[in-house]
């Protein structure tokens, strides 16, 4: 039984990671931009959930408001800063977004302070399911997993089956061709970036009731997100999903079985994958 629950833990953690990492892999894959500030957007989402749900009194109201605000922030950043980096080396993207991390973290300190906060789990989902005589599983965690799966499905359909998805794919694989066919690349980039920011912020918001809201939380997810994107293959949503689940398993079972090496399990997994598949599991050659 314990092992079944650990598998559940792995999947549940993996799906949450996928939600954060999916925005990163989109921005990476479609725009070719490395965004170190992705963790900051996750952090901003969590603080939005805290601030908005205390203002409105409900997480359900905070969620749509927060998504709109995050997307607006994404559009603004893309227009003011990111759009100037498309033709530049990755190195400059790394640095500019490194600067953004410092700015967002310090703004967080100025605006909200340095205390730890929490967001209440909505009453409807507050229950727990008893799994064994000692252990119960919070319904909200299962709800998060369901939302992640639904979003994964939605993203797949959007990109593979809709007209907008086709435009995105065209823009990613051959920007010049796409432009000559009359696509407005600028708008596609702006929208993709805003969507990436909104996804990270949404992950932060929806995870806030279980993760709590605290300084430095963005940096904790940042590196593991990069690991996921790289293992999965840059730009591949399918790869990100599989990599997230792999990381979920590596982290969970690493902690239980080889606690001495739990901290490096994730990085070891990444190194091994890249040695055999230098472009990740589903990366384009």
């Amino acid at each position, binding site marked *: 039984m314990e092992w079944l629950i650990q598998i559940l833990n792995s999947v549940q953690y993996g799906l949450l990671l996928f939600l954060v990492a999916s925005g990163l892999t989109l921005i990476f894959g479609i725009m070719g931009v490395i965004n170190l500030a992705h963790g900051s957007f996750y952090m901003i989402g969590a603080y939005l959930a805290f601030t908005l749900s205390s203002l409105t009194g409900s997480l359900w109201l905070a969620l749509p408001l927060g998504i709109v605000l995050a997307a607006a922030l994404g559009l603004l950043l893309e227009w003011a800063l990111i759009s100037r980096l498309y033709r530049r080396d990755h190195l400059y993207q*790394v640095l500019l977004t490194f600067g953004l991390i*410092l700015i967002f973290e310090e703004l967080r300190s100025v605006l909200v302070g340095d205390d730890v906060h929490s967001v209440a789990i909505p009453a409807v989902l507050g229950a727990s399911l008893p799994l064994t005589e000692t252990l119960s599983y919070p319904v909200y965690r299962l709800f998060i997993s369901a939302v992640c799966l639904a979003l994964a499905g939605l993203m797949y359909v959007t990109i593979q089956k809709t007209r907008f998805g086709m435009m995105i794919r065209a823009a990613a694989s051959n920007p010049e061709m796409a432009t000559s066919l009359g696509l407005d690349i600028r708008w596609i980039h702006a929208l993709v970036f805003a969507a990436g920011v909104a996804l990270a912020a949404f992950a932060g918001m929806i995870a806030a009731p279980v993760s709590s809201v605290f300084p430095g939380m963005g940096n904790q997810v940042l*590196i593991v997100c990069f690991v996921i994107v790289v293992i999965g293959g840059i730009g591949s949503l399918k790869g990100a999903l599989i990599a997230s689940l792999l990381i979920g398993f590596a982290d969970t079972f690493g902690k239980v079985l080889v606690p001495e090496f739990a901290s490096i399990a994730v990085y070891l997994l990444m190194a091994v994958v890249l040695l055999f598949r230098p*472009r990740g599991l589903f990366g384009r050659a």
Partner: protein
Amino acid sequence: MKRSLLPWLVVATVLLLLFPMAAEKFYLQLVTKIMILAIFALSLDLLVGYTGLVSLGHAAYFGIAAYTYALASQAADPANVWLTLPLALAASAAAALLVGALVLRTSGVYFIMVTLAFAQMAYYFFHDTRIAGGSDGIYINTRPDAHLPGLDLADDLHFYYFVLALLAIVFALLAVVLRSPFGRALQGIKANEHRMRALGYATLHYKLAAFVLAGTIAGLAGYLAAAKEGFVNPEMMAWHQSGAVLMMLILGGMGTLFGAVLGAFSYVLLQEWFSTLTKHWQLLMGGFIVAAVLLLPHGLIGLHRLRIKSRAPRPEGDGD
């Protein structure tokens, strides 16, 4: 080195030679620290600026040498430089050889991430095990002894000149290396690896050699940092240290040796200055980094180049 930069190089050297006469002890130590970081930045410049390999895990080699030295000098007596330095450099070189042989199979963004992954492993190795004090770090009780007449590294002034000499040696060494056929090949790889391979170069071997050389020089910087502070801590290897040294390069202007040194100086001094202005100085630092990326595409050294170009356009490319 471009001829136009030569006067600046001379001025900088003279200033650094004379600086201790005017400086209080704190500033002496501060400049010592900056020169150590300049060596570190130079080592990364060889990879990023000249070979086109963007490593986000360079702090690992800095830290490995520092830890090797710390572990080799736990006795009460000062460690011998001529024993511990080669040992520390060898440790960094070996780590760079091992990691390099693996990571050079990847390229681009993947390369950035795998170098980071290996650096994180090194970080957690020292952070999580008790072999060297874990997360609290360990002390080195004494500065190393170089056993040279008249040189006492425990003295801050002597140590300053020791570091300055090593900075000059590393600078000169890299200048020579970059002019050698080997260095030309590296720059060729950066410009167009396919062409180099087509010309018959075993580019992988060249890149690996550059990776090991860069790791070894980073190790020298790490050794000096540990000797200076008398204290090592896993945070020396944290990913944001690798990020900071990259920032120094960009700020100064990568692909020029002088730019790496200039970057180390301006980065540290800016931080010092900002932190005296406000409690929320990280906001200023972040804003500055963003502005620098947008407004100074070639770093501070680019300002100089811009000026030269506007005065007299020169036909040469921008390699120096």
